[in-house]
């Protein structure tokens, strides 16, 4: 990158500038590594310590004991396989619902423009103004007894999937992207007699891959990171998510086993992040900044 920033290249080219630059760079890079990677190192390494070493003072920087059994014990005691499976199930189910219903809605609002479409979009966006935590109580009561169909969704995946569709921000992002697709492209297809469904499927969706990627990642990560809502709506231990399951068992297991469990729980999202970091970080700024 050659863009000009705060400090002029002329200053940086000087000997003193160079020395300052490199010392600041070393300081920040070193500091970041310690502050952000340090706790993660501590997490992984403490997971290998035995029961005495993990609570020893002073703590050991490099584990002296090596007990990888902690990880297998954590896996069994906390039933991590079923917690992981549940979380995957909820996250990808929510993703499917959001991709189908929110994409269809955004497409309709952007391209098909039904009567009252603007009002509906306005009401959807209005939900962004309501603090999410305030809505938790009435939402919970709604899940206990869904109006009209009179069903109790407690301890069913629907309690996660259906409310996840009400993601006005995703609809907004999708609609804004669909708005930007050249009109001529879609009109040509309609002229050839393609139905709206066909236009969506064969023209809009292929063009929209980048934004679909962003929306998908945020949908999955959103469910993965949620805590309060799954704790309330999935109280059955057999149906809990990773976050809630680990939390509810955290007092009953030895520290080193708990830490091993935390490491295992962190791995999936960290791996996803390392693979999709460009999309995730790009999507983050695309969602907040325009232009």
């Amino acid at each position, binding site marked *: 990158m050659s863009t000009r920033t705060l400090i002029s290249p002329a200053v940086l080219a000087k000997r003193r500038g160079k020395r300052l630059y490199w010392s600041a760079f070393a300081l920040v890079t070193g500091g970041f590594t310690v502050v952000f990677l340090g706790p993660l190192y501590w997490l992984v390494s403490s997971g290998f310590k035995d029961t005495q070493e993990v609570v020893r003072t002073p703590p050991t920087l490099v584990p002296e004991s090596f007990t990888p059994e902690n990880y297998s014990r954590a896996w069994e005691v906390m039933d991590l396989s079923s917690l992981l499976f549940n979380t995957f199930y909820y996250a990808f189910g929510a993703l499917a619902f959001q991709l189908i219903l929110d994409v269809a809605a955004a497409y309709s609002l952007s391209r098909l423009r039904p009567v009252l479409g603007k009002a509906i979009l306005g009401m959807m966006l209005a939900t962004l103004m309501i603090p999410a935590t*305030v809505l938790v109580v009435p939402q919970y009561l709604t899940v206990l007894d869904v109006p009209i169909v009179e069903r109790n969704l407690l301890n069913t995946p629907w309690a996660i999937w259906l409310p996840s569709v009400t993601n006005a921000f995703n609809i907004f992002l999708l609609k804004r992207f669909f708005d930007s697709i050249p009109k001529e492209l879609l009109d040509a297809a309609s002229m050839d007699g393609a139905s709206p469904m066909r236009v969506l499927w064969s023209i809009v969706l292929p063009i929209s891959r980048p934004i679909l990627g962003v929306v998908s990642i945020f949908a999955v990560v959103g469910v993965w990171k949620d805590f309060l809502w799954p704790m309330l709506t999935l109280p059955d231990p057999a149906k809990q998510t990773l976050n809630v399951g680990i939390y509810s068992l955290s007092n009953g297991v030895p520290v080193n086993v708990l830490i091993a469990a935390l490491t295992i729980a962190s791995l999936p999202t960290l791996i996803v992040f390392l693979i999709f970091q460009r999309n995730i970080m790009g999507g983050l700024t695309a969602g907040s900044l325009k232009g």
Partner: protein
Amino acid sequence: MSAPSLTPSKAGSSRRSTPRPEGPAPGGAFAKSLRRNLTAHSFLIGAVVCFAVFSWWPMAREFLLAFQRTESGESVWVGLDNFRTVFNDPAFWQAWGNTLWYTALALVLGFLVPFVLAITINEFRHGKGYLRLLVYLPVMLPPVAAVLLFQYLYDPGYGLLNELLGLLHLPEQQWLQDADIAMFALVIASTWMNMGGATLIYLAALQGIPGELYEAAELDGAGLFRKIWHVTIPQTRLILSLMLLMQIIATMQVFVEPFLLTGGAGPEGSTTTVVYLIYQYAFNFDNYGAAAALGLLLLVLLAGFSAAYVKLSRAEEE
């Protein structure tokens, strides 16, 4: 996948003003318009039903609940009784005080630090990708993992943090057990977990500042701090204000950090927050009316910030 493709051009927006052929139309056109609308609404219906059931109805219900009480399965109107209950709760003022204190602390740490870091990283010619990756890493952790990790670091007996303080010859702290310190401990953990997003957004904003502005400022003899004050901050003012508002809205709703780190209330109630109090009313005391009343107060307070946010982001779009 290139970044520019995520930021749509203005091509679509010009269409918005094109008037739709409507009004008195022959039967054929009416049928056509009807069919078009039916198709459009059939695409919308799924999301609209979800919004209606899980968003719009709960929003309305929040208002109803605040003025009702449930007596043997029946909802009874009780006027302002719920608000009286909430106001007379000794925890009420403490919770607001704690929440405001948390918000203030989180702003100092979570608003200033990411901006300063972003300015610094933006100057580097090397390793930007690595630094961006690091700062965003904690955001991807499941919150329970991050919070329980901090609990281990904060432990008064064998925690790493007290060990580090000891090395620096500083007094050890009862991080989560001391009423005066617990809130700081929460803010540190929460900032570590959440500052990545803000840092990346500031970085993107800084990259949009035209370099000529700095050159011009230098010609006028401006030093480093004057350049920041007269160029960097004015150029990023909008995004800074938006992030400030967003952060206030988010931190005023803090729940997970105190709930997990200090069991909610904390030592001497020092970490009871408004949302934790709402949680307690609803799920420990089965008093949905009081929970809704307190929620409504929070909603009204935050609505001001939300409205300012919407107004500002409209301004950005123009």
